[in-house]
């Protein structure tokens, strides 16, 4: 029996998204399954953004907190460190301090932080709220205005607050993260709602909700695979935006990245375990379709980039 490569071509294509102004990065744009360059076109590599935040990362575990000692007390220093020392291709600023249960910082406080960071670095910036539905709807429109002209990604818009946030992203020419909770239908519905209000599908990044390795990764993995197949095989336009894996914040709060080796000797080195946990969550989700990843530990980013190199 002669062997013929069972290649598959798809009618659909993932939307390529370009962010940033002076320095730009593009992700998405492929017309095939993740890294299937043997049967389709994969024009852009996934983009990894370093996560920083407006307040010191007191709840980050030691392994990753210590990397940013001396810079993480100030988001501007922190952003510069990522760009200059870590050679970040992109930076994701999370405004956790605006959460009512955190410091409850105001929209104006957030605007000051965002302005400071934007003035300090040139790489493309992702600006995210604290994931508090009402507060984000207050904070994100204000910071979207401050960031006008920088072609950022703003997020996350959810079913309960998308109107305000999407309007702000639209008015100030930003891209938008649309987040729903681990359900392909909810994800599709939110993208439809956004396009119905006039928001271009070419400016959406779908966040089907991340989960860490061992903590529901299989759900995110399969929702991503299903979204991607809908985009490619069924040529479903609303499912064609690239996808986000918001990896760092899900990984660095679980037990495997915190439990010391002397308590759980059978789990081995805490440092290596934590870093691998973040890298492996990222690489697995990339294999399922994520093109934009938000990560924390420089070594995890380094290994993930190397993995991308080997696949591209």
């Amino acid at each position, binding site marked *: 029996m002669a062997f013929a490569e069972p290649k598959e071509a798809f009618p659909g294509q993932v939307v390529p998204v370009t962010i940033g102004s002076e320095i730009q990065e593009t992700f998405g744009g492929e017309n095939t399954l993740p890294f299937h360059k043997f049967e389709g076109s994969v024009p852009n590599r996934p983009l990894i953004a370093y996560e920083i935040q407006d307040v010191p990362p007191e709840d980050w575990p030691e392994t990753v907190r210590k990397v940013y000692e001396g810079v993480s007390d100030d988001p501007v220093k922190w952003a510069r460190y990522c760009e200059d020392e870590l050679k970040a291709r992109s930076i994701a600023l999370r405004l956790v301090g605006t959460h009512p249960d955190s410091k409850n910082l105001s929209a104006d406080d957030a605007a000051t932080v965002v302005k400071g960071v934007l003035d300090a670095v040139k790489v493309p910036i992702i600006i995210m709220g604290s994931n508090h539905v009402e507060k984000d709807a207050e904070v994100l429109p204000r910071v979207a205005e401050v960031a006008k002209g920088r072609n950022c990604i703003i997020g996350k818009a959810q079913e309960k607050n998308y109107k305000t946030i999407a309007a702000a992203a639209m008015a100030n020419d930003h891209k938008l993260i649309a987040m729903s909770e681990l359900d392909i239908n909810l994800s599709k519905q939110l993208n439809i709602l956004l396009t119905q209000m006039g928001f271009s599908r070419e400016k959406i990044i779908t966040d089907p909700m991340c989960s860490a390795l061992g903590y529901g*990764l299989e759900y995110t993995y399969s929702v991503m695979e299903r979204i991607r197949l809908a985009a490619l095989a069924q040529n479903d336009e609303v499912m064609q935006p690239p996808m986000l894996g918001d990896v760092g914040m899900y990984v660095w709060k679980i037990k495997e990245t915190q439990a010391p080796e002397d308590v759980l000797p059978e789990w081995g080195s805490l440092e*290596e375990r934590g870093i691998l946990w973040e890298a492996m969550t990222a690489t697995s989700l990339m294999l399922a379709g994520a093109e934009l990843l938000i990560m924390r530990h420089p070594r995890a980013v380094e290994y993930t980039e190397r993995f991308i190199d080997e696949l591209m």
Partner: protein
Amino acid sequence: MALTGVEIFKLLPKTNCKKCGFPTCLAFAMKLAQRQASLDACPDVSEEAKKILGEASAPPIRPITFGTGEKAVKMGEETVLFRHEKKFVNPNAFVLEIKDTEDDATVDSKLNDVLTSEINRVGQLLRIDGICITNESGDAGKLQSLAERIAQKAPEVAVMVNTENPDAADAALKPFSGKNPILYGITEANAEKMVEIAKANKAIAGIKAQGLEAAAALTEKVKGLGLEDIVIDSGARTASEILEHNTYIRRAALKKNFKPLGYPVINFVQRDEPMYEALVAGLGVCKYASIVVMSSAEKWKNLALFTLRQNIYTDPQVPMQVEQKIYKIGEPTPDSPLLITTNFSLTYFIVSGEVENSKVPAYLAVMDCEGLSVLTAWAAGKFTGSKIANFIKESGIENEIKHRELIIPGYVAILSGAIEEKLEGWKVTVGPREANALPAFLRQKVA
């Protein structure tokens, strides 16, 4: 691809003799197509029809068992390309490579890594499943003495012998004869001799090819020599080759019914750095490898890989459940708060994660609701006042805590009256609706 009922019907005697227990040959053919009957039931079927139907009814990826006893690994029998379609069937084996050029101390240390690799995660025992002994030296005697050392020190571990030299293969396989070892290193050049040796030792044939076409030709050759238990190495070594070859092999077997590639796949992912090696091994786990050969087995690396394999091979149609019990988070004291939720694994992971985040030591009562989330379980009548009351009473938590306050999920606030009624002396507090509000809630509670 499986034959349809009508295609099968054409191959049957069409006598409607009813000896098979079905009224007509067509009815029998339909049952055969649905795999609800066996061809053996027809006494008059021709040899030719048996051959055709036998091949058509064989699983598209041949089932193979590597090793023997409790720790044997089943491989193959996969039916889909994407895990949401249907459960991935047989989790891959992780195999640690030991070379015959390594000194005794290194060999023993690696053996020890394998023997102590077992971890219990969510009720499953996970481990490094096998050892690959590699004839790096090219010397038959060296491989033989390594084989003997391993057979003696790790008699229960599945072994794969890696050599292209028939003399070395013969000597090294002997200690594992009858234990379903793999003889890897069968090439176009040495196939005749190697297959003889594999057959003599009841070993699985591990073919070593360069490219998919060569792999297909070689499996046909090995099959022709009388050995059908085969595992394939297509020569893929880089991540990009592994993704391409594994995808084509799985597709060819499942979608094209291309028998020459319908066997489990071995991936060699050795890299200089264990952390990076783990990521390439993870590619094998996600993308269709049945055996992943690695150069190290650190505990932290094993934990991540075992967890990934468990996640990928979970049945997507059966909600993953955690055990019903009272979980301690942090180091709770008799005054620590007690919360309750259901045993859907995702619910458990999210709630326990947020409780951990709060840094407030607490008891988390996880109740068996057949793997449903809180609202679904409530709607299905599995998370009710009386059931919760029974669970709390029977759990024995009353002996561990001083207070009598139960925190319930905000979504089922409606249950508080019913629980208080059934659970005498207890006070029910309604917690937040979403888990991410738990840290603030708990911190305020103990402040």
